[in-house]
């Protein structure tokens, strides 16, 4: 896959990966012994962490409360907010 070049593209990848993880997670709650789904979940989770790290390196923290680091100056309060389409 071609390396993402802009914020929107990277964010879309994170959204796709995380949605897959959300949906697999719901499935696993009621099918905890499904090893194939579990392997998919763990693989997606690793890819998500990697993509998230790449995004945060370039565009600042995605999460609050110690889940993401910030460069100086504190970038959490920088625009844009997600509802600002």
């Amino acid at each position, binding site marked *: 896959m071609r390396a993402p070049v802009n914020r929107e593209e990277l964010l879309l990848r994170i959204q796709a990966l995380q949605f897959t993880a959300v949906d697999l997670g719901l499935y696993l709650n009621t099918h905890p012994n499904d090893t194939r789904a579990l392997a998919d979940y763990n693989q997606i989770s690793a890819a998500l962490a990697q993509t998230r790290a790449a995004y945060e390196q370039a565009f600042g923290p995605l999460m609050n409360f110690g889940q993401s680091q910030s460069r100086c100056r504190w970038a959490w*309060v920088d625009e844009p907010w997600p509802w600002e389409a």
Partner: protein
Amino acid sequence: MWVYEKKLEYPVRVSGPNAKLAKTVITQYGGPDGELAASLRYLTQRYTMPTSQAKGVLTDIGTEELAHMEIVAALVYNLVKGATISEIKAAGMEGYYADHDRALYFVNGDGVPWIASYIQSKGDPIADLHENMAAEEKARATYEHLINLSDDPLVTDVLRFLREREVVHFQRFGETLNIVHDFLNCRKVW
């Protein structure tokens, strides 16, 4: 979007079943100055805040209030968990028990259910931030009343933590009000 972290912001322990105390503490779950009202108020006001800093403050404090709602729920859950029917009756909680057993529901200490008119979202950031500062002080006062009523030192310890957070939030909202004032003063003349 939100993700859930499988832990409390502050550890919760209780000395034992205590329906009387649960009946009062539940007001910070679903009462007028409780944590549900606080979180929903800030999380719905944040969209129309005029500065990015204000949006961040409301997002973060609204999110922390959700964690406080969980702490209050953990207190009430553990206080009623082992309570007997006669203890529930003695606490005047039989009306609550009839409708909810020992489940969590959004009511105040007298069983009045939560309503959206506990909160406001005015679209005027000065009005909204003043409401939020008042809300933090009302919640602080409520926690002080609950500390006065508490006969369980473990519960009191948690209530003290929650009270402190109201003080910190008030401070941050005051600073946010100044930031928003400065921003609006640069742009508008009335």
